[in-house]
């Protein structure tokens, strides 16, 4: 899923300051699951914003609403009448959702309430781990199911650097060395060949260095 974290309150208050009628828009998919921008979080932030406005003697109307997904046109289209009634939308979706709302309602101020942090999964309730960078050139079938691009601090492709010790990464003892994990998995599966062989420089053009990426399934395109 896409993981996000709510922005600091001070930053949110600053963004919202020029506006009087705001639609606080939650997203029912990834950010609901990672407890950052779903219906529950919309309720909490709305209460906090209203308290602050009352304290400041400011007339602020917050409308709360959560849609299934902010990253698909159909869902975002459904909130048209709500958006028309406000002067700003504060989106609690990931950056994808925020941009689609902005794309569909370009005349409105669209404010991001979250920082989109990464793609990952929960290793335990309340803790999420980044494990995909969307580099466009997957090697997981070779690397024992562990992504060296994401989970090695230097994105190395030829094994652990000299800072790998006791299974830990040199930059933080709470971070496991991805290459230690890769080594163990490949060794137990008798597949160390890949690691023993020279891996050439990567093609980063698929990873965003080639400019913004677009994926087209030509047979599915409907004009």
């Amino acid at each position, binding site marked *: 899923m896409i993981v996000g974290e709510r922005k600091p309150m001070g930053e949110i208050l600053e963004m919202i300051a020029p506006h009087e009628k705001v639609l606080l828009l939650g997203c029912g998919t990834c950010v609901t699951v990672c407890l950052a921008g779903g219906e529950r979080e919309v309720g909490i932030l709305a209460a906090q914003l209203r308290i602050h406005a009352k*304290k400041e003697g400011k007339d602020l109307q917050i409308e709360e609403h959560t849609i299934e997904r902010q990253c698909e046109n159909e869902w975002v289209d459904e909130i048209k009448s709500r958006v028309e009634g406000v002067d700003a939308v504060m989106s609690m979706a990931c950056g994808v959702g925020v941009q689609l709302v902005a794309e569909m309602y370009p005349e409105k101020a669209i404010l991001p309430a979250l920082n989109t942090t990464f793609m990952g999964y929960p290793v335990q309730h309340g803790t999420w781990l980044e494990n995909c960078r969307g580099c466009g050139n997957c090697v997981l079938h070779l690397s024992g199911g562990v992504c060296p691009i994401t989970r090695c601090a230097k994105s190395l492709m030829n094994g652990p650097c000299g800072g790998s010790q006791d299974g830990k990464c040199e930059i933080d003892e709470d971070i496991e060395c991805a290459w230690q994990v890769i080594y163990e998995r490949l060794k137990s599966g008798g597949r160390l060949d890949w690691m023993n062989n020279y891996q050439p420089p990567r093609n980063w053009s698929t990873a965003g260095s080639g400019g913004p990426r677009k994926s087209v399934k030509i047979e599915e395109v409907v004009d």
Partner: protein
Amino acid sequence: MKAPFEPKILAFCCNWCAYSGADLAGTSRLQYPPNVKIVRVMCSGRIDPGHIFRAFETGVDGILVAGCHPGECHYISGNERAEERVETAKAVAEIIGIGKDRIRLEWISASEGLRFAEVIEDFIKEIRAKGPNPVGGDA
């Protein structure tokens, strides 16, 4: 003439300790001010920022979250979560102008009826000194 300010306190009490403590205070006929409304929850870890800020929004002047002493949570670690959540809520309360001191976390066991009464009395005194919730409201 304006009536003197009487703080409205909402106390979220854990079923296994603080709520029983409040009960004991009652059955022991200990006196504590009537300004407090008690909400029984199964664990202090049940409280999230939504409960706290919705309550402030409606005009509550102070919120007490009362759970089991560290190491004695009926659900092992619910009170640790309560502690972290209260810390987070306090930080936001400060930024949005409610003030962090309107939220209070206390550990009160089932046998501490007297302590429950003292905590309530002390908290009310503190909130009375601070004055009403700046948001107003008629909770």
